């Protein structure tokens, strides 16, 4: 099947054999058109999982499949069908919005008129066209994130991975971004995996995977949202409310 399949992925960091695995038999899938929230407190293994999903490193065992392509057997086909928004900003601050887009297009083998068309379509989708000539350093955090999402969609991927993409954004920008990506999944049939530790970014109809200590401890449809989901999540992981809802914790 298409979309994203993660099957029994286990990973242990080198030199840490006395520690429990960073990921232990993690399995779940995201269908086309589905928004899947990967929820887990800090240290749950989300970043390790993203490292494996994006082939930064290979898992000790298990299988990852992107749009029907196995990441270990056909990594280039799998990567070509995947768009990624990393937790860290990956934009070139000294270049303009437009140059950043064309650089990415070149990396994906899109050139000339096709590159310009793909870039302007992707920017248009995220309402960023008018900022094309601005230097990325001059953009605010929200616009930079939108640009990264636009860029990740330029090569028309079938799977979109986002690793805590709302870190450092204000509440309104965060809400807008969450709504926008939900709409993208619905409208364009993208399989979206959205890693977060903030329960207010999850909608009731979203698929939900809860990761804790490197294991999937719950999988299904979110159904609950807001404080209800927070309470449920707390019961599962025993975390702190502030961390999960994005509220400031007392110092």
């Amino acid at each position, binding site marked *: 099947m298409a979309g994203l399949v993660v099957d029994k992925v286990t*990973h242990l*960091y*080198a*030199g*840490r054999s006395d520690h429990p695995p*960073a990921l232990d038999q993690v399995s779940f899938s995201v269908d086309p058109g589905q928004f899947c929230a990967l929820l887990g407190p800090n240290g749950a293994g989300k970043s*390790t999982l993203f*490292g494996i999903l*994006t*082939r*930064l*490193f*290979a898992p000790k065992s298990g299988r990852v499949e992107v749009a029907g392509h196995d990441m270990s057997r056909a*990594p*280039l*086909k799998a*990567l*070509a069908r*995947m768009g*990624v928004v*990393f*937790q*860290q*900003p*990956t*934009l*070139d601050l*000294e*270049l303009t919005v437009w*140059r950043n887009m*064309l*650089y*990415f*297009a*070149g*990396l*994906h*083998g*899109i*050139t000339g008129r096709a590159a310009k068309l793909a870039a302007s379509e992707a920017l248009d989708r995220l309402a960023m066209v008018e900022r094309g000539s601005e230097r990325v350093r001059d953009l605010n955090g929200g616009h930079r994130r939108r640009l990264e999402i636009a860029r990740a969609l330029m090569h028309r991927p079938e799977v979109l991975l986002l690793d805590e993409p709302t870190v450092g954004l204000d509440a309104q920008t965060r809400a807008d971004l969450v709504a926008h990506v939900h709409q993208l999944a619905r409208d364009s049939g993208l399989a979206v995996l959205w890693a977060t530790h903030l329960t207010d970014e999850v909608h009731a109809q979203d698929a939900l995977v809860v990761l804790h200590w490197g294991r999937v401890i719950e999988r299904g449809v979110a159904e609950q949202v807001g404080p209800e989901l927070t309470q449920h999540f707390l019961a599962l992981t025993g975390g702190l409310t502030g961390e999960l809802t994005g509220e400031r914790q007392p110092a």
Partner: protein
Amino acid sequence: MSHYVTALIAICHREALRFFGQRARMIAALVRPLMWLFVFAAGFRAALGLSITPPYETYISYETYIVPGLCAMILLFNGMQSSLSLVMDREMGTMRLLLTTPLPRWWLLSCKLVAGAVISVLQAVVFLEICAVYGIRFSPMGYVAALPAMFLCALMVGALGIALSSTIRSLENFAGVMNFVIFPMFFLSTALYPLWKMAEASELLWWICAINPFSHGVETIRFALYLKADPVDWAITVAAVAVFMALALWGYDPGKRTMGRKG
């Protein structure tokens, strides 16, 4: 156009845009060798006597002797600057963007290497122009012949830089490694003094200078400027490129231990 070529052009274009956007970097890269040429060389000329050794056919001034070494110095420092940018890219995340490109890793790293080498050679060419204005000139064909020699030397130090960048986790560590790599590599080479001069000082130093691949990189440039070539220098420099690149690819292999290490 092939996807491979498109990616190479995109990576070279980005490096060029970044480089020309930072004029201070260009000036800094030139100030260092020009200081050596205008200040140190003047002092050393009095202290050092040079005999006639290949490729030279007549007595030359010390300034003339060190020009190829200073070209290699530009390549060395710029090559390390490129690998420093790889460590920064990794800290910044842009390296991850590159590594998720659907092309083989060996190609992506080769593109990075070639892009860095092109920028380095451009700087060395500007330096040679300044030398010409100062009065140290070579034959027109000598300049043309020096281009592939400088490019090869740039590839060698660039590949070493990429290999080092795969093992270095933070910018702070990088500064330490630079001191242990750049300075010994430069000072224990034929860039500033001929090999026979080293033999007079110490046999051990002579051996270190003789096996230092950077010495052979410097000599390929020196000989090329006089339209000559020593096959041993070329062979050792090419072999060093291959070994350093193999180490770099191993360092960035997704299945390897350090790539899966918690950062």
